[in-house]
């Protein structure tokens, strides 16, 4: 029995295994960041990455200077920053959804053109465009 | 001579949790003993959940009935004492309906999440000096953290039912729980300040010279009141039961649940009541400590004869009764009143209270003489 336990314990994780694990989690988060188009989905992936980074701090703390606590403190800072980020991010998404009706990042192209942003894709007819711009101005002037 | 010193001299008092015993047994190489400990802990948790659930549901019915000049269940068994058992059997045999458009996996997961959160807290409560499954040195933080899983269970149940009433109920519950959690945590921190520890067993032992509710003069009492109000809101009981609001939302987040899964939600709700009451007494009312007046004397000696477990469950029942009393007296708050109470009343008072507690602890200010040693 003890031999079995010893052979199991031989696979105990060292610093490199831990770091490999966080790298894997970070890469998965990166994949999600690159493939998701929903803003909330992107935020989920970012949370994953932040989390693996915080874990990294604690791992280094545990293996490289176990008598100190700095890694844990940094992890707490990371968690706090993540919380702040999520609060603001979610507020922006909710406001954006109210305004645009979607949180698809591919459609957040407001800076491109005031008309397309306001109406969604419209036919680029010069007459229509001028008309809408005029109405837009008259509405927001008073 | 206080209880602790008395018990310590007689060798009766020794804080040994079940997990410590198990670790010791493993270290000694007696696998069988360790296994027995683990099984006993699991079995005791299961038994506790069942018994507390049955007793609390029966008590709720009877107490509610008598508050309203009724008799309550009277038919199944003596004074309806087997009514809950009959209901449990009915719920177990009932068809488990899942709405057709529901998110099935999430719908199945939600009640278990809710139940899991509750049972995980039961494991760290100190029922008596020798009856505690595990004593975490971050016990208070753990309890606050784990209750987050309960919120997720509720939110998930409401969302996955694909029913607008369920979803409205779930979102109300989520907003309510995470709001009131702040006040509850602020009240907890007062005790953490005074006792200087987050371990529940150590907090209980720190109340050897008087319970925090009156030894921390004024501050402790205010914290206790805030805590009771906040946890009443956190477990969604009247007057804070807008997530369920029968008259508006059918049954809130568990409208679409039936049979076993409904009973899980239901049981989790009642066990939650037990858990928050147990937390309240552990932090403020001395946990399993007996009631003492002064030092020594026949009265204290008589109190010491009552075993700590009875003290624990007796005090817990008192707080549970208080919460039931609230339920059958007060009308339900509106959503805006609920948020008003939290953000404009409880939270400022809680912050001021916490600040006062910090000042008292820092400068060792005890403006009143200590009545209870």
């Amino acid at each position, binding site marked *: 029995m003890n031999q079995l336990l010893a052979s199991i314990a031989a696979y105990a994780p060292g610093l490199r295994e831990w770091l490999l694990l966080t790298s894997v989690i970070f890469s998965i988060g990166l994949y999600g960041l690159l493939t998701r188009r929903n803003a909330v989905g992107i935020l*989920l992936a970012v949370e994953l990455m932040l989390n693996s980074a915080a874990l990294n701090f604690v791992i280094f703390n545990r293996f490289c200077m176990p008598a100190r606590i700095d890694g844990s403190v940094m992890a707490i800072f990371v968690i706090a920053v993540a919380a702040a980020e999520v609060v603001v991010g979610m507020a922006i998404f909710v406001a954006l959804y109210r305004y645009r009706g979607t949180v698809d990042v591919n459609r957040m192209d407001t800076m491109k053109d005031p008309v397309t942003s306001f109406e969604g894709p419209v036919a680029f007819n010069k007459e229509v465009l001028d008309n809408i711009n005029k109405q837009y101005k008259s509405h927001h002037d008073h | 001579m206080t209880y602790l010193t008395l018990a310590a001299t007689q060798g009766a008092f020794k804080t040994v949790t079940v997990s410590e015993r198990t670790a010791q047994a493993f270290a000694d190489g007696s696998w069988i003993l360790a296994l027995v400990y683990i099984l006993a802990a699991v079995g005791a948790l299961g038994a506790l959940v069942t018994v507390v659930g049955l007793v609390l549901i029966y008590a709720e019915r009877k107490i509610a009935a008598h508050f309203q000049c009724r008799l309550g269940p009277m038919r199944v068994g003596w004074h309806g004492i087997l009514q809950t058992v009959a209901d449990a059997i009915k719920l177990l045999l009932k068809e488990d309906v899942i709405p057709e458009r529901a998110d099935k996996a999430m719908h199945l997961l939600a009640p278990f999440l809710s139940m899991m959160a509750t049972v995980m807290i039961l494991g760290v409560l100190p029922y008596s000096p020798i009856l505690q499954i595990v004593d975490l040195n971050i016990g208070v933080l753990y309890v606050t953290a784990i209750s987050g899983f309960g919120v997720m269970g509720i939110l998930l149940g409401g969302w996955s039912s694909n029913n607008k009433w369920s979803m409205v109920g779930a979102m109300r519950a989520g907003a309510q729980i995470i709001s009131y959690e702040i006040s509850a945590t602020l009240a907890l921190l007062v005790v953490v300040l005074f006792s200087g520890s987050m371990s529940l067993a150590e907090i209980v032992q720190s109340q050897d010279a008087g319970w925090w509710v009156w030894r921390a003069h004024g501050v402790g009492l205010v914290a206790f009141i805030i805590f009771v109000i906040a946890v009443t809101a956190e477990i969604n009981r009247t007057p804070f039961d807008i997530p369920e609001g029968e008259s508006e939302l059918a049954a809130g987040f568990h409208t679409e649940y039936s049979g076993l899964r409904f009973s899980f939600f239901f049981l989790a709700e009642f066990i939650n009541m037990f858990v928050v009451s147990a937390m309240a007494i552990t932090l403020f009312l001395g946990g399993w400590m007996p009631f003492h007046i002064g030092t020594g004397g026949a009265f204290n000696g008589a109190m010491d004869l009552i075993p700590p477990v009875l003290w624990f469950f007796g005090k817990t029942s008192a707080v549970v009764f208080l919460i039931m009393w609230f339920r059958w007296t007060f009308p339900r708050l509106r959503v805006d009143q609920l948020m008003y109470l939290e953000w404009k009343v409880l939270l400022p008072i809680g912050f001021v209270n916490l600040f006062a507690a910090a000042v008292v602890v820092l400068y060792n200010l005890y403006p009143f003489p200590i009545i209870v040693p």
Partner: protein
Amino acid sequence: MIGPAIYTVMFWVVAASTVLFALAVVNTRKLLRAAIALMAALSTTAGFYVMLDAQFLAGVQVLVYVGGIVVLIVFAIMLTRSGELLEDHPTPERRVVGAAISIMFLILSAAAVWVSPFAEYSTGKTPPNDALSIGKALLDPGPGGYVAPFEVISLLLLAAMIGGIVIARKTPPPNQPFTSGGDLPGETDVYTPLSQRDPKRGGPVS
């Protein structure tokens, strides 16, 4: 002997489940399920913290992430109906490019980890009560203390809170119609083309 064995088994089991949950986070089509998978992944990370002798951090992780952040995300998903945004499955090109980039990153970082000589003192003694040490470190004004970052992070959280309220508030401040679709006239129905709007409700006066 039993301790290290249990530790090892737990590490690999929890690591495998974390990776699975993380994959679920980025691949699930329904966003709410992704959030639940994120919750599971973060909870298992709390388990890692326990394994790394940082119990306090584990508690904070569960408290902040599960009790706060994931609940917030679920709220946002419910409010924005992102769960119904079914076009959120990426195109194959996107998948391939994303996978390639992330795998490249993984190889790079794994190689870096593998070849770096780390100064390992695994025999060191960890602080028994990390809550106490973290609290002391956070409030230590001297060298090695973190009181300034602590205050900064408090300010950041306050600013985030106020900013969140301001941004997500329903009624926008005057002269800033783009902050949100509020309940001022003409702001509720932003989808209606301006030309079709009722002049009484803030549409163009024709």
